[in-house]
């Protein structure tokens, strides 16, 4: 049935083409469209029956008319994968973008990606030191985790992602990460920023880029992350690489999803996004992890910009429901001139407990992290109160906590873009030093045994 070209388009709506009278076409089959001027486009079957086939066109439907020829290629979307992808820049549909040769396939991999059997997973538990205190102390990352960055326009999420990509390492191991970078609808300027940084640090040789920019077809964005993850799975599970997948911007991906939903006249879920967006996003995010019997791993860093800085917007909301925590970038801290402006309060790493503690980071890590949170949270709350009643109304404990909130932001959070703090001295010892600004009796989250051992002035020696 391949080879036969149909000219039976009945309707064109948004990114969708409707045609009838075809041979049986497979659900998910890929499609080639030949326009009357000879231009070629690609698409995928979204709905198929004896009477009608609906095709989603990746490059958009501009210039398509009823004379357009449509060929079904007999198979679902597959990506040629090989270790030669490392060091390459590909476009949003997996074709070379760097002027290099086509990837010679070692294997053709189905881009939908089968679900990992939950029984076959291995729990992530190896601490990754990012060298950023806020993350290492309070939202520790482990290998195989999916930890998105919730940001908003105009905030330095890209710097943070790059700093993590540069500095991420397993303490006591020299296994390096391979970076798979996936751009979805970002501007050329943002893209250049990433590429220059990766070039500058030599990381580009150890990276594979899939790039769909703002002026590239919007619908193509729906497959770009699937290509990136397919490459990541191949590298991790066939070739034992530890892969760090950074994708940005998930918000653009979700907009494309919404566009398809609208064109299909589906009943929308919340704020116009498709009801199946949770499942769709899960099909991406769940492709992180470790599996039994394989050495490699996939760690994901999706970046998304929250529309209107609103964390309850469906895009961050549904992401947060799937990922294993989130790192939240704060406009308020950014405006105070603090880099990295990470608000640790709404940030969370759910796999942290498995990755920290004795033999992994340090025995006191959990205690310290809990205490930092508690003290900072209370200090910030007191700021609100002080604004109303003034400092005079505060008792001693409250005054100390109030002051600590500033210390935490200006000293603990703040670090430079190339400052790589070690977890022990750079981060945990520093935290103790800063916590000693509060009377020990108010530090109720700290186990006495850690106070005895680590408190800079109250320790027993």
């Amino acid at each position, binding site marked *: 049935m391949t080879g036969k070209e149909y000219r039976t388009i009945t309707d064109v709506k948004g990114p969708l083409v409707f045609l009838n009278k075809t041979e049986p076409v497979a659900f998910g089959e890929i499609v080639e469209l030949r326009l009357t001027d000879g231009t070629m486009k690609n698409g995928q079957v979204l709905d198929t029956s004896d009477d009608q086939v609906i095709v989603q066109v990746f490059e958009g439907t501009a210039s398509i008319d009823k004379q357009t020829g449509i060929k079904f290629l007999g198979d679902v979307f597959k990506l040629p994968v090989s270790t030669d992808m490392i060091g390459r820049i590909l476009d949003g549909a997996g074709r070379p973008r760097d002027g290099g040769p086509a990837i010679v396939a070692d294997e053709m991999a189905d881009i939908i990606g089968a679900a990992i*059997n939950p029984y076959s*997973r291995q729990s992530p538990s190896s601490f990754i030191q990012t060298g950023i205190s806020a993350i290492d102390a309070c939202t520790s990352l482990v290998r195989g985790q999916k930890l998105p960055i919730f940001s908003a326009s105009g905030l330095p999420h890209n710097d943070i992602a790059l700093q993590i990509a540069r500095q991420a390492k397993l303490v006591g191991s020299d296994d390096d990460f391979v970076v798979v970078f996936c751009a979805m609808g970002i501007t050329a300027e943002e893209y250049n920023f990433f590429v220059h940084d990766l070039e500058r640090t030599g990381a580009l040789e150890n990276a594979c880029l899939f790039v769909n920019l703002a002026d590239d077809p919007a619908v193509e964005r729906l497959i770009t992350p699937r290509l990136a993850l397919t490459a990541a799975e191949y590298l991790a599970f066939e070739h034992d690489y530890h892969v760090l997948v950074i994708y940005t911007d998930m918000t653009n991906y979700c907009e494309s999803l919404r566009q398809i939903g609208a064109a299909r006249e589906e009943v929308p879920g919340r704020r116009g996004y498709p009801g199946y967006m949770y499942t769709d996003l899960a099909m991406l995010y769940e492709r992180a992890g470790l599996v039994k019997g394989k050495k490699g791993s996939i760690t994901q860093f999706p970046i998304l910009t929250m529309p209107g800085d609103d964390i309850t917007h469906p895009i961050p909301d549904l992401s947060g429901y799937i990922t294993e925590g989130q790192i939240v970038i704060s406009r308020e801290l950014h405006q105070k001139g603090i880099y990295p402006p990470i608000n640790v309060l709404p940030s969370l790493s759910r796999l942290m407990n498995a990755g920290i503690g004795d033999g992994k980071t340090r025995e006191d890590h959990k205690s310290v992290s809990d205490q930092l949170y508690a003290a900072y949270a209370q200090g910030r709350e007191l700021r609100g109160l002080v604004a109303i009643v003034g400092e005079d109304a505060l008792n001693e404990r409250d005054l100390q906590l109030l002051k600590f909130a500033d210390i935490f932001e200006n000293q603990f959070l703040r670090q430079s873009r190339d400052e790589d703090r070690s977890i022990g001295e750079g981060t945990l010892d520093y935290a103790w030093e800063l916590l000693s600004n509060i009377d020990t009796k108010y530090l109720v989250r700290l186990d006495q045994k850690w106070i005895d051992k680590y408190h800079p002035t109250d320790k027993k020696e």
Partner: protein
Amino acid sequence: MEVNPRQNKGSELKMSEENGVIYRISGPVVTAVGISPRMYEVVRVGDEGLMGEVIELHGEQSVIQVYEETSGVRPGEPVIRTGQTLSVQLGPGLLTKIYDGIQRPLPELEKTMGVFIKRGVDADGLDLEKIWDFNATAKAGDSVSSGDVLGTVQETKTIEHRVMVPPGTSGVIKSINSGKFNVTQNVCTLEDGTEIQMMQKWPVRTPRPFTKKHAPEVPLQTGQRILDFLFPLAKGGTAGIPGPFGSGKTVTQQQLAKWSDADIVVYIGCGERGNEMTEVLDEFPHLMDPKTGEALMNRTTMIANTSNMPVAAREASVYTGITIAEYFRDMGYDVALMADSTSRWAEAMREISSRLEEMPGEEGYPAYLSSRLAEFYERAGRVETLAGGDGSVSVIGAVSPPGGDISEPVSQGTLRIVKVFWGLDAGLARQRHFPAINWLNSYSLYPPSLDQWYRDNIKSDFPEIRTEISALLQVEAELQEIVQLVGSDALPVDQQLTLEVARMIREFFLQQNAFHDVDTYSDLKLQYNMAKAILSFQEESKKAIAGGAALEDVVNVPARTDLMRGRFESGYEDKIDQMLEAMNKQIADTMEAN
């Protein structure tokens, strides 16, 4: 265990000869023509024989939800009837297992297809080959009917499996033998020739029968202070845990799975993370059941249909789980079932419904959402079993409201039915106050029916102590409003003390670290003693202050910190009285200092 590609679950099924063909494929929904199956009948779809279930019949067309990925499937491929409705296999071998939403054992799937779940492979829910030691307890000549126990099998170290007469069967036993059998061999024959095996099948969408429902009157003890003490769940009761992402639904559910004093636990991971299931699989074999001293895994069955696994199987997963729970209830056990998250189940319904182009209700959910929720929770309860015993299924459902706003249909539909509401609060989670259950808006409707039990089994004034603790928290909330305006120093000293006492309730009693070896579990007696200690602190402080002591000195006595930190040390239950005495003495001493 034998895994048969493209074969029917349960080898003795008679396949109907009737064949049809696929007309249309739209994601997980496939339309077939040329067959006339029954509603909810299981069919085999396409060349690969994917498993599906008929969910709508109209005209010539049968609409099928398919439990596996459908890409690559074409119109014109065959659809074959099986004559069976979606059922689970019940019998020895359910415990310690992990299944997908349609009861395929995940380890078996791994054996045949490796770490990624491919499709078109079937596997029996029970190991049909495994030989069990059947110990007949009924004897020839006994007259038996549905639900009566014929014999037992030691299924795991701690759980005795009671082999029952399947529902709808009765008669006089002609022969019955103890001995070694697999689950498909006959263990018992009735006078009328009916042969009974250890395995029975039950359609998942139909509740299993029982004699009658009883009012619950025994608490499900969970070891979680805020739950047991303030908002208890009864054995056979229902609870909902709504909360935004990261607020602690899963941790709470896992705590219940670990520490609640149920005999059997069914844990359903419905559309959630793969790693969370792995965590349970890693931990449970090593965690000790406080009741039996054996590994928790012995009493546990898991269903894992993660967010990236097919949505139709996700929809089925809660039914698979609750049917297994009812089956153990019928043996006379107390079963606790956790479903994390019921919102993902509802979303699966929504997705299928929208593919069917049904008229949508609120927020695109099908109009039958609330009745499906009600039917599900209605399968909980404490019952008199067909055999005359006492068994229960408690159901605890997590709810994941978009944006954490519980005015949405799934939360509302759940709250209308469940008797316990544990409301998780993003603000508390952000302050790392865990469990982040809001003590002001959560509730339980069970205390009136449980109070007698507490009086008889824990302490005669248990309900009164609970009332005092809740009242203090209410008063604190009112005082906090004033503090927000004027600061705490402006309050009279007795109110300042009330704030300190309430703070102690929150930080010492309500907060409980699930990840701390000791703090993770407190039994009811200890909970009572801790609550009493707080009230005693209030009492003694009042006296001291009346005697001239400064509030500041009273609240800062070192022995109070010791008492509070003590809960992280093992053997606390033996030390708390002494620590309390030391605290009270130091508080009394603050009077003399002045």
